[in-house]
């Protein structure tokens, strides 16, 4: 049982900074959850609260069914990978991995050696045991940091922006690698990142954090397709956001007036006429020169058109002044800056978000 | 590195052990083990004797300490000491702590007096000495109760000296200190308690020691003395400073000990010492012992040995200091005696030592103003 429970955790720093507000989250045994949010949203503080580096001002933290508030970091069964890896520069790779096995004193001495080899094998770096950290590449350091964190068989794995300092290609391969290893051992894992792609691709569930609060917790597809708030919509993936007022509610449809453009959208059951809402569309559903196939069509001027390999992406300025991103189908027309175009989006692809 | 036994080092070790406990630095325990290798046996069969350094110390070692060691089997640890003014406070601090960093030392009269005021000196039984009868009575020092504390060690004369390559005729009179023809050419001694320049001024321009009795008289003397400053090219505390600049003529003339000048001459330096017309300044040292020393018997033996006329003569022949035995006991030939003592001690200016001790602060204040403003 390696469940993680955060229950109504609050963190207020002595200086008055309110870093975490009423945060509650349950991570099930073996689950991979990513906390994602912009810099300074409180996600790292949340992670450090779990590791024991910070004490919550109020609320409780549970690890593996035990309430751990007040327990120092070294007595918590957490394994953490730090942003810059924090490999001890004065120890070899082997010594780094052995550190967690020997300091606690609860690891049988004769098994330390085998465990080191086992971990090196797990991260596919057998033979690097006697290197010093500064002789390793970024990716190798990352793997060793992971091996070190996992060596003492922690109940949960905490990853603090572990891929942030790697270059793009390496980052992508490490995303796959991390997930592989996590699934192989089946360890409960929390990843903290500000990179939404990373969050979407790696996790079982995503917890989107903003200004110290969890705005939405759910599976990646759910969060992407059904953002609970404007912030989530904007932060996860690219979104076109239109603020407006509900004009009409009928059956399963609502009509929203956004600065002169009227959107028809699927109606959530909680909106009423006169509500201020936000309509969200994804670029891939917002098609340039759609013909008559879309429910909502509106016009604007192309400012930039970019070729992205399988499609063109178009930035369009609406008469209201707001910018919208749309796509041109592969068989669609060629557009360039200055063209006046029409954009279309289906009602089912228009999400209505209430603040 | 081979280092002979040394009682001072063992004291050093005690110090470190003490420090260890104070600082609580465990590493030092190992250190004290190292120091242990150098500790001496501390028996009374060795004496620590301190004198002035340089040639003075070397000659005393060769002509006094070594023969004494051979004769008695008591080994001597020879040390160089700083200026009189600086050593007395240190001796006092050691004595007050019950230590005796040295067993016998030779101290000029003002130092002996200062030590007496602080009750630093061991008193001696005259009957235990055999050779005190030879020592000039003027050079014995008794405390207020009439106990013997200091026995004459050496006497020396402060002369006017000059570099023979720079000037054919050096100054012969103390009046040249005031003579503007010597402007910026002379070396003068400081502090006053070693150079005794107030006594010179008093002897030349006033009524001698009588003119140094009251503060206002002393002020008058200093007023006159301030006229010597234009002639001073250098004020020296360290003989070495003047010695080297005298040798190469940088400072062509000045006040210096007759004995040191003669040693320089022997080494081939173009220098000459002149017994001053109005009398050279007579300084003298006493053998004294801190009262905390526990080597009383050996001390008596040493001082007694040093007081033998033959030993005094031997030291004088080599060091060119004036023997402290009365002239009739000295077997120095007339020429040698003339070389070290000139026209004799009777014609020398004897400084008003008491003044320097009793009015120390006052004198030093006047003196510092005088030389610093120069």
């Amino acid at each position, binding site marked *: 049982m390696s469940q993680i429970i955060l229950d109504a955790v609050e963190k207020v720093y002595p200086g008055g900074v309110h870093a975490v507000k009423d945060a509650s989250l349950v991570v099930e045994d073996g689950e991979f959850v990513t906390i994602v949010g912009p810099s300074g949203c409180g996600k790292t503080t949340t992670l450090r609260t779990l590791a024991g580096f910070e004490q919550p001002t109020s609320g409780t933290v549970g690890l593996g069914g035990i309430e751990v508030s007040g327990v120092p970091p070294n007595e918590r069964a957490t394994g953490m990978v730090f942003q810059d890896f924090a490999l001890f520069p004065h120890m070899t790779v082997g010594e780094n991995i052995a550190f967690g096995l020997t300091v606690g004193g609860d690891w049988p001495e004769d098994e330390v050696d085998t465990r080191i080899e086992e971990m090196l094998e797990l991260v596919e770096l057998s033979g690097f045991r006697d290197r010093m950290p500064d002789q390793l590449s970024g990716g190798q350091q990352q793997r060793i940091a992971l091996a*070190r964190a996992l060596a003492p068989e922690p109940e949960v794995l905490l990853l603090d922006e572990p891929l942030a300092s790697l270059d793009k290609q390496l980052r992508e391969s490490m995303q796959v690698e991390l997930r592989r290893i996590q699934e192989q051992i089946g360890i409960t894992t929390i990843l903290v990142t500000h990179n939404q792609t990373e969050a979407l691709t790696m996790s079982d569930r995503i917890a989107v954090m903003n200004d110290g609060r969890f705005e939405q917790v759910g599976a990646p597809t759910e969060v992407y397709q059904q953002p609970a708030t404007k912030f989530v919509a904007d932060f996860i993936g690219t979104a076109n956001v239109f603020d407006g007022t509900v004009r009409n509610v009928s059956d399963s449809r609502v009509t929203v007036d956004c600065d002169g453009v009227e959107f028809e959208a699927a109606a959530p059951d909680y909106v009423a006429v006169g509500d201020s809402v936000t309509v969200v569309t994804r670029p891939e559903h917002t098609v340039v020169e759609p013909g008559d196939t879309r429910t909502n069509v509106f016009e604007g001027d192309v400012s930039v058109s970019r070729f992205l390999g399988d499609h063109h992406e178009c930035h369009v300025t609406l008469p209201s002044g707001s910018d919208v991103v749309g796509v041109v189908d592969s068989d669609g027309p060629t557009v360039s800056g200055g063209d006046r175009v029409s954009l279309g989006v289906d009602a089912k692809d228009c999400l209505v978000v209430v603040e | 590195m081979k280092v002979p036994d040394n009682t001072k080092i063992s004291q050093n070790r005690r110090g470190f052990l003490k420090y260890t406990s104070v600082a609580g630095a465990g590493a030092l325990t190992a250190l004290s083990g190292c120091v242990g290798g150098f500790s001496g046996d501390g028996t009374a069969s060795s004496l620590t004797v301190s004198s002035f350094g340089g040639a003075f110390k070397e000659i005393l070692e060769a002509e006094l300490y070594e023969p004494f060691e051979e004769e008695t089997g008591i080994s001597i640890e020879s040390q160089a000491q700083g200026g009189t003014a600086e050593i007395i406070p240190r001796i006092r601090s050691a004595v007050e702590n019950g230590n005796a960093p040295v067993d016998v030392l030779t101290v000029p009269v003002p130092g002996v007096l200062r030590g007496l005021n602080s009750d630093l000196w061991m008193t001696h039984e005259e009957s235990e000495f055999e050779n005190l009868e030879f020592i000039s009575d003027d050079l014995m020092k008794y405390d207020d109760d009439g106990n013997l504390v200091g026995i004459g060690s050496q006497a020396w004369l402060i002369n006017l000296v000059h570099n023979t390559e720079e000037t054919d005729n050096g100054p012969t009179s103390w009046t040249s200190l005031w003579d503007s023809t010597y402007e910026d050419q002379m070396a003068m001694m400081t502090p006053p308690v070693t150079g005794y320049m107030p006594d010179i001024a008093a002897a030349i321009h006033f009524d001698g020691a009588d003119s140094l009795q009251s503060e206002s008289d002393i002020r008058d003397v200093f007023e006159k003395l301030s006229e010597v400053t234009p002639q001073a090219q250098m004020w020296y505390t360290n003989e070495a400073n003047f010695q080297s600049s005298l040798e190469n003529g940088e400072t062509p003339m000045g006040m210096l000990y007759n004995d040191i000048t003669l040693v320089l001459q022997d080494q081939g330096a173009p220098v000459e010492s002149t017994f001053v017309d109005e009398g050279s300044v007579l300084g003298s040292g006493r053998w004294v012992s801190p009262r905390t020393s526990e080597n009383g018997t050996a001390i008596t033996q040493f001082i007694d040995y040093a007081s033998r006329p033959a030993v005094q003569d031997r030291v004088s022949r080599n060091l060119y200091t004036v023997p402290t035995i009365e002239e009739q006991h000295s077997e120095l030939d007339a020429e040698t005696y003339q070389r070290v003592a000139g026209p004799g001690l009777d014609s020398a200016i004897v400084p008003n030592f008491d003044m320097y001790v009793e009015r120390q602060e006052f004198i030093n204040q006047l003196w510092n103003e005088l030389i610093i403003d120069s």
Partner: protein
Amino acid sequence: MSDGRETTRSSTGEYARLETKRGSGRDRLYQLLLNSYTSLVIGFVLLPLVVISLMSFTPSEFLRFPPEGLSLRWYREFFDSRAWLVAMQNSLFIAIAAAVGATSIGATAAFALDRYDYRFEMVLTGLSILPILLPPVIIGVAFVTLFGLLGVGGEPWTLAVAHSIFFSPFPFVLVSQGLGDIDRSYEEAAADLGAAKATVIRRITVPLLRANLFAGALFAFILSLNEYIISWLISGFSFKTIPIQIFTSLRYSYSPVIAAVSLLFIVMTVVVMLMVDRFAGGMWK
């Protein structure tokens, strides 16, 4: 690391360079002036050390420049002289004790101030730095009063105590810098891996600070070795360190043995500084 000229040349190209030839000539002139001037200054720094070194090999009694030959006479005199050797031992013992004392005080203060909050932090910081800013003669007089009052005036260990305090700002500043530079995540990683606080300090913090601690201790060592005025004020009648012994010797003669001792000291100092440079990972790369 690229230099200013290099960049200008490669980015402006051949023709631009020809056009600005007069300007670049002026650049070179300034560089030449700077180089000549600084070479003179380096010479100024070097000269006395070189002269002392040469002097120490003079065969004659008096210091002459240039020396008339080469001789190890004065080194022999140094190693034959009990007074000098005892002074050297005294100096070394005081310096080692001072290095241990100063480093333990300075480093602990730096650690405490870096890791914890105190109400009188500014006071402790001030006390940690002030000793080196006050004229040493004042520190010396202050210790004279203290040790005099305690009745331990003149005891050799008082020098070690005084130097420990007087030089503690060096380890303090160096260790403070080191603590500031250490990435906290090393210590957190260790704690996360199960190391208790004391273990973290022993296995992570101290090893990472090794260069700073070592440099601090060496600084204190070499400074103590060279310190004169405090030692002189508080030392007893017969206790001499090398600087005191030199000063006392200077009183009676400018013997070349002083030059010999000086060169030994210069060599020791340079060796220690090279060690500091090496252990601190090349401070001046």
